[in-house]
């Protein structure tokens, strides 16, 4: 009996153990994330994440949109004054590179024999490859124009054990981007779709991808117009291959109004509930056709109000002054409606509620750029027209076509009919077609495309209305007669950067500190090549040929 019990006990225990044995390899299959996805799904996720990171309230909002002085911060003005957040800089540098890796993976899925056949089900292989190369060129150009020389030829090779990619010269990267765009345009078969679904830029239309490649090639060629003698050849090639022909070709990323797939500008304002930005005075004055009397700067079409003014700013701000007039800066404003931008680049402590209360409350007005499905602009037909105008020595026809296309595009976006007096406006602003007017109209069109507007300022020095460090941002009353309310004393608040920029608008963003620990040697080598050998904001881009004696090379 005892033996039986004991045998039974052992046998039962052992059989229980054996039956519990698992296939260990099966246990370790990740059921949370797939190890294979169709190429169009990868492209769809990648496109969205790129747009989420480039067009948001950080990379755009607190960097290029304030650098190009479209926006200013309402409370905390540190980034307007070139004090960036390390953690943001670290994270965006990293994330944008992982998105480059995703685009490379789209190419790989369409190239590798094992996956190309499956990928072809979702769009012609060569078209998918081309689209990924084009978007990659666009993203790299944004990155180069932000930081300057960055890792390129050695980037994205971790699988091969490359932990420390070297930084390539920005000029070399540019040359390769032009080549990429040329090859990508050439390989597209316009008779086949690029993607069956998931492409929120061109809905898989390969012909539009091709036009975008060529248009983007024109943009990059123009950037290098002062440093690369081939720039006109590149544009000629692109025009021959086919560029944007109307607003319907615009390269826009289409967000959805279904939560949570909305545009990041909307997310930042309404989901995170942060009313941090509004229109800055320099941009507002440009739109109003108002010369900058504080800094004695003229306006090429003074007194002509821009038809896009209300679309961009959400309309005028109604001032409610309890005692019939309210003091903003050094002026009393009576009850009424005003277009007044907030002073740009002054200390947070000087940004009083009086300035905020008269500037557009875009949070409340919600102009189209803050709508949940605002299509963010990678490049527009209007911009291309201005490029071609400059290419043709500031030709009037393309300039006018650009102005018209821009107003039509923005009106359409805002759901408004095209202003009936559009032709009058075009005539008004076309009295002189030159470097300045072309640059200024391009600047107005590039609203919300801060990355490109900032490039254009650095390349051309236009618009001259943008404030430079030390220039007057606003005049405030410093002493008031308590009885008569008469202003007895006033003084100017100036645009006062918190970082050294050598008297100009910021020339680049510092390399992230992240790189000093994770890619130290390459970082140090890259920093050594910057002006003064420090990781600074004033080293000029290779295509920035402005000098103190020749501040506006676009004139030449």
């Amino acid at each position, binding site marked *: 009996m005892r033996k039986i019990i004991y045998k039974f006990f052992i046998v039962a225990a052992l059989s229980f153990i054996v039956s519990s044995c698992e296939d260990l390899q099966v246990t370790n299959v990740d059921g949370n994330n797939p*190890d294979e996805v169709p190429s169009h799904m990868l492209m769809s996720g990648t496109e969205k994440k790129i747009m989420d990171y480039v067009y948001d309230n950080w990379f755009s909002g607190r960097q290029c949109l304030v650098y190009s002085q479209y926006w200013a911060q309402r409370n905390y003005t540190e980034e307007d004054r070139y004090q960036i957040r390390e953690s943001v800089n670290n994270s965006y540098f990293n994330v944008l590179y992982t998105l480059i890796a995703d685009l490379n993976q789209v190419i790989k899925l369409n190239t590798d024999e094992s996956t190309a056949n499956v990928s072809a089900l979702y769009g012609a292989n060569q078209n998918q490859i081309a689209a990924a190369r084009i978007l990659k060129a666009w993203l790299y150009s944004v990155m180069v124009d932000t930081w300057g020389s960055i890792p390129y030829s050695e980037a994205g090779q971790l699988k091969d054990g490359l932990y420390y990619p070297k930084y390539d010269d920005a000029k070399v990267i540019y040359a390769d981007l032009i080549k990429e765009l040329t090859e990508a345009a050439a390989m597209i078969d316009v008779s086949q779709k690029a993607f069956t679904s998931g492409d929120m830029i061109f809905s898989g239309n390969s012909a539009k991808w091709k036009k975008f490649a060529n248009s983007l090639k024109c943009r990059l060629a123009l950037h290098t117009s002062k440093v690369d003698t081939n720039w006109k050849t590149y544009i000629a090639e692109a025009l021959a291959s086919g560029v944007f022909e109307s607003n319907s070709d615009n390269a826009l990323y289409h967000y959805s109004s279904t939560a949570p797939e909305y545009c990041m500008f909307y997310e930042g304002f309404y989901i995170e509930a942060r009313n941090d930005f509004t229109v800055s005075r320099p941009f507002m004055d440009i739109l109003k056709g108002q010369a900058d009397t504080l800094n004695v700067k003229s306006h090429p079409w003074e007194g002509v109000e821009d038809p896009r003014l209300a679309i961009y700013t959400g309309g005028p701000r109604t001032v409610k002054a309890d005692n019939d007039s309210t003091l903003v800066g050094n002026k009393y404003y009576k009850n009424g409606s005003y277009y007044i931008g907030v002073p740009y680049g002054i200390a947070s402590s000087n940004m009083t509620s009086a300035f905020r209360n008269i500037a557009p409350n875009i949070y409340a007005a919600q102009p189209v750029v803050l709508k949940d499905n605002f299509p963010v602009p990678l490049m527009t037909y209007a911009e291309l027209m201005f490029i071609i105008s400059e290419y043709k020595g500031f030709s009037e026809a393309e300039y006018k076509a650009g102005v018209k296309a821009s107003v039509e595009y923005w009106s359409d976006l805002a759901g408004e009919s095209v202003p009936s007096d559009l032709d009058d406006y075009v005539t008004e602003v076309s009295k002189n077609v030159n470097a300045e007017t072309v640059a200024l109209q391009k600047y107005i069109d590039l609203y919300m495309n801060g990355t490109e507007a900032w490039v254009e300022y650095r390349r051309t020095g236009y618009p001259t209305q943008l404030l430079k460090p030390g220039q007057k941002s606003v005049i405030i009353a410093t002493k008031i007669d308590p009885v008569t309310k008469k202003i007895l004393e006033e003084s100017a608040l100036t645009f006062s950067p918190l970082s050294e920029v050598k008297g100009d608008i910021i020339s680049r963003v510092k390399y992230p500190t992240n790189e000093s620990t994770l890619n130290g040697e390459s970082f140090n080598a890259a920093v050594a090549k910057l002006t003064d050998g*420090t990781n600074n904001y004033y080293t000029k881009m290779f295509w920035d040929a402005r000098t103190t004696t020749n501040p506006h090379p676009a004139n030449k």
Partner: protein
Amino acid sequence: MKRKLMLLLTCLFVGIGLVTAQTQRVTGNVTSEEDGLPVVGASVLVKGTTVGTITDIDGNFTLSSVPTSAKVLQVSYIGMQSQEVAIKPSVKVILKSDAKALDEVVVTALGISREKKSLGYSVSEVKGDELLKSRGGVSNPVNALQGKVAGLQIAGGSGNMGGSSKVLIRGVSSLSGNNQPLFIVDGVPIEGSDYNSADTQRGAGGYDYGNLIQDINPDDIESLSVLKGANASALYGSRASNGVIMITTKKGKKGEGYGVTFSSSVGFEVVNKLPQMQRLYGGGYGSTFEQVSINGKVYNYPDYATDESWGPKYEGQSVLSWYDLAKWEAGGQVGDPTTSIWQAPKHDIEDFFETGVSFANSISVTQATDRASVRLSYTNTDLKGYMPNSSMKKNVFNISASTVSADKKLEVFTNLTYFNSAAKGRSETGYADNNVMQKFVQWGHRELDMTELKDMYIMPDGTQATWNRSGWDDPTPAYSNNPYWSRYKNYQNDTRNRVYGNVGASYQITNYLKAQYKVNLDFFVDKQFERNAVYSQEQSKYKEISRQQYELNNEFMLMFNKSFGDYSVTANAGANLMKSNYEYVLGETVGGLAIADFYNLKNSVSSPTSANIRKKRATNSLFGNVSVGWKSMMYLEGSLRNDWSSTLPDGNNSYIYPSVTGSFIFSELLKEDFEWLSFGKIRLGYAEVGNDTDPYRIIDTYTQYTNVDSSTPGYIMSTELKNTGLKPERTYSYEAGLEMNFLNNRLGFEATYYYAKTKNQIIPLSVSGSTGYLTRIINAGLIENKGIELAFHATPLKLADFEWNTSLTVASNKNKVKELLDGVDYYRLASAPFKVEVGARVNEAYGVIMGTNFVYDEKGNKVIDEEGNYAATNGNEKLGSIYPDFTGGWTNTFKYKNLDLSVLLDFSKGGKYFSTSYMWGMYSGMLEESAANNIREDGIILDGVQEDGSKNTVKISGQTYGESHYSGPAAQNVFKSDYIKLREINVGYSFPMNKSAFIKSLRLSAYGRNLAVWGPDTKHFDPESIVTGSGNVQGIEGAALPGIASFGFNVSVKF
């Protein structure tokens, strides 16, 4: 090292002698005086010979060949007084328990009780009572071990209700994996880690739900053993490579009859450590107020839209405060609003916190008979926290029972615990909108009065009233909720239901061989409910998270226990199958809540989102160990284990590892000549431990990112590059120890030296994004830990009625990252939300803070830039190490008759932390230093030199100085973590009771914990209280919760 061990082994076997003489047969029986039960495994030795045996399951023994010349038998058993009896053919021995000796029995791996002196490795034991002395309601029971065990570091986020405690034995050995020791309750491995997100650990927000080890009920703990080295824990496999905390629960004991124990305690928590804030200037910017005119009257309106405190000085000005406006608006804007005086608040942030009160009641009933024993217990704890609207309740039921067959061969046993907890209103941690500390210290106005905030946090129409108004005529919150709104409207709650325990059976095959089969289970369901009310600053939201996890261990063991003459042999062989399964389900509203104050996922403005994660793992193991003892003087033990892990790739998933230890009680040889030497032992050990990794680190995957095209979900690649060639990790460790007691154990010490190195560590290496990934899973690194642990104890005074005991523990661990990967010299653990990161650098200690530093000239002066601010380095430099150089505790206990008193101090020296609160608190003009020394009135000239070497003379404003803590070098916000803490004071009185009376014992006691802290940088924070996770990411403070002192009273009655 291995050679030396072999030598020792050889020594052990020398001296085996054979005895041949005339013999007789002796049989006998050994029972225990205390409960009358047979003593199993008692050693019976013929005095002066090597002839001996051990008793069987019934306490019987037979010696068939006792020399007739022999006269005396020596009978001994651990925990009992040895006896010598005259030899007769049939002997009956009753052993008395030995209180002194009992202290020396410890529970070791696999739950086997061993004489401490026989062990070749370091074990510290703490009695369950110690954990109860200052339980303080619902605090993490593990915190009661602080300062009591050499080499055990416990950092408890003392301010957080039910928050995490970081537990470390002998420092950090794994770069990224788990460094927390394995907790085992009666053989059941217990999930002890936390689910805090990476953000919570780095001080970037989220709730600290605490590590799950706090589910253990201290009332049920009989004893707790800390097995420190790899030797001690080799039998538990890889998870035990950081040491094991073995918990043995209370069992039914024979002889106590129907024993009933009742204990009750009441505890109080008060805030005793808050950052020091300035009380000279109010919120806003500049020295003037905005003029606002209402009904023709003009008022001074403070700049409430700004959440900083660089505003006007308190000079008794009349202002239109947010409170005046809120009252006026609540009354329908009738008449003129009231005005207030601009002054430092009468009720400042300390008045926000309440006195926490906790009650703990525990009852247990035990009964034991010849063939069965049972213990039932129930413990209930109820806490109202010091944060407004916070509470936590716990219920724990435990049953422990066993029964044996009539022949006493088959035993069936179980021990099950059901745990249930419900918490409400845990504080958000770190840089988070509803962490009130972030609003009190980092961003806000300093003139705010807590009674006003409390009075008007909600308007009659249900909307929020906050001080942080967007404008005088716009009450929308700009950045900050009213802190009372955060506490009463945006609260979370959570519940956990957990069952752990085992069911098993053992069969005594022969009197020296036993088979045992056991199933160990740990299962819990944890639910979290997080709310953001409508009318909050942020979009309203409701979120539910459900986590379910089980771990099942099937364990089969054969146990052998037999004496061969002077040799005693204990051996075990077994197999274990571990399976664990984790499921996470999340539901969250999107686009806000449609109906206010209705918390259901369906109340989502847009379709709610959901997510789920499942993680599975399994490990199959075979293991065995052999321990040989000789004359209770020398012991040698070896073990071997083979694991097959699911988390490693096929071909690399099997790993085998050995351990060997030896000990020599040299006092046995010397005791006759050196009477002052009560005890002396040396021990040596070597162990290897293999380790696997987390699931799913082999194959590259994609992550779902978007549904922007509803027909085509969008994916991106994982930013982590996986590794198909992973190999198991391996730790090699050596340990040597010396223990000596003198003068009848009045004085003694224990010293341990250890060295451990870990190879092939599996880590997610942070890489530059330009590689295309953010992390890569690699086998890397050689990390080295070496250290010493010292424990001294003494009884300086021992009189008839009075006794003074003192003990001191000190431990120092030095840790070095020797290698990472060819050409890779830095490993990042985490980055703080704004500045600095914590990482590991080759040839330096693990856990260094990396950030921008001051620039120093050749003479060591700080360089000041042209504007008068500190210059900062281009990139990140090492700013300090996060772990201490040494830690320890000093306990003094005094006994006078029935009155006892104990005082525990503990200390930590070395280590730094980065304070995000200090950075923002200075930036926003909130902390005391931002208004001290007249810097706002006079400005400040920083001590340093200009780039040309001349002394700095550039004056900057107080505000520029404050703001430079963010814009300037990160090093300005790095502090020392050194502290000395008055950890615990206990005083108790045990009433003398008659054993036969209804009440058998009665004890009253009082305690105080965390009563004071001293240190160079403890002005604003308790360096210990910055912890918001039990993981490796430490050293980053982010709006840490205040320090808490607790005190209370206990009553314990036995019937």
